[in-house]
C-alpha cells in the first residue's frame, strides 16, 4: 500500500521535474535570428555589404537589435532602403550618411567621434591609465619595503621577544 503511494509520489515528482527542466530550457539564450528577406543582388559583394550594413545599423524602434535581427516595421523598411541604395550603386559611407541624417547617432552601432562620445571612445583607456598609476604606486612601495633594511635593532628585538611572550 505504502509502496504504491511512494511510486505515485515519485511519478509526480518526475513529471514536475521534467516540466521544470523544459521551462528552464526556454530561458536559455537562443540563437539570434536574422530576418529572411528575399532581396536579390547582382553580386556576392553586394550581398556581403548588405549583411554588414544591416548588422551595423541599429533598429530605431527596438533599441537593442540591429536592422538584420529585427522584425519591426521600420527595420523592414530600412532594410529595403539599404538594399535599394546598394543596387543604385551608393557607397557604404553614403548609405550610413543617409541613415544618420534621418535617425541620428542612435542608428549607428559604431558611434561617431564627437565631443559627446569622447568618453565613450577613450574612457576605457583613461581607466586603464588610472589603474596603471595605482599599480605602479603599489609596485614602487612594495620595492621600497623589500629594499630597506629588514634587520631589527636591539631594542626592537627585545620588544619582539616581549610580544611573543619570551618563549625563546
Amino acid at each position, binding site marked *: 500500500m505504502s509502496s504504491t503511494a511512494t511510486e505515485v509520489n515519485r511519478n509526480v515528482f518526475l513529471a514536475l521535474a521534467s516540466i521544470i527542466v523544459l521551462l528552464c530550457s526556454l530561458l536559455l539564450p537562443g540563437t539570434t535570428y536574422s530576418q529572411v528577406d528575399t532581396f536579390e543582388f547582382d553580386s556576392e559583394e553586394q550581398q556581403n555589404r548588405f549583411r554588414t550594413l544591416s548588422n551595423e545599423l541599429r533598429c530605431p524602434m527596438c533599441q537593442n537589435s540591429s536592422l538584420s535581427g529585427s522584425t*519591426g516595421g*521600420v527595420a523592414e523598411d530600412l532594410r529595403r532602403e539599404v538594399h535599394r541604395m546598394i543596387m543604385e550603386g551608393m557607397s557604404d559611407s553614403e548609405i550610413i550618411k543617409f541613415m544618420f541624417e*534621418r*535617425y*541620428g547617432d*542612435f542608428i549607428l552601432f559604431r558611434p561617431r567621434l564627437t565631443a559627446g562620445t569622447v568618453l565613450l571612445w577613450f574612457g576605457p583607456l583613461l581607466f586603464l591609465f588610472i589603474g596603471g598609476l595605482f599599480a605602479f604606486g603599489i609596485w614602487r612601495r612594495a620595492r621600497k619595503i623589500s629594499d630597506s633594511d629588514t634587520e631589527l635593532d636591539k631594542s626592537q628585538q627585545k620588544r619582539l621577544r616581549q610580544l611573543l611572550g619570551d618563549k625563546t
Partner: protein
Amino acid sequence: MSKLRFYLPVLGFVFVAVALWRGLYLDTKTLPSMLIDKPIPNFELTSVDGSGVSNSDLPDQIFLLNVWGSYCLPCLIEHPTLMRLSEEGEIPVVGVNYRDRQGLAIDWLANNGNPFSFSILDESGRFGIDLGVYGAPETYLVDENGVIRFRHVSVLDETVWQEKFLPAIAELLEEGG
C-alpha cells in the same frame, strides 16, 4: 597628502554613484529628432482620400503633423485630443498615415472621426523614413514656414498638449511677433 588619499576614493565613489543614479532615470526610449529646425522633407504623394498632395498643400500657419495608423492602439488614446484641437480650431492637424492600407485608413477615419485637414498616404513607410519616424504615434510641431520645430513621440493627450506643445507654440509665437 594623506587627506587627499582619504578623499580621493570617496570622491570617486560619489562620482560613480551620481552617474549611475542619473543613468537609472535617463529616458532612452525617446530619441531626439534629426529634423528639428529643418523643413518637412519634400513629398508628392496621395492623400488617404485619393487626391494628390505635396508640400504646397501644407497649412501656411503653425500646425501639427501627426503620424498615425489604423493598427495603432495608442492612436486611439490620443484621438479625442486631436479631434478637440481640430474641431475647436485651435490648430490644424495634418496626418501621415504610416505603413497602413488605404482601405483600413478610410474605415478607421469613418469609425472614429477625422481630425485631419488631410492625411498623407504613406503605405510603404518611405516618407516616414525621410521624417525619421520610428513608429506611430508621433507628432511634429511645424511652423508657418514648414520647418519642424518640435517632435513628441507616443501619445499626445491633454496633459502633453498643455505641458509640452503649448509652451513650444508660445515660444514660436514670441519669436515670430
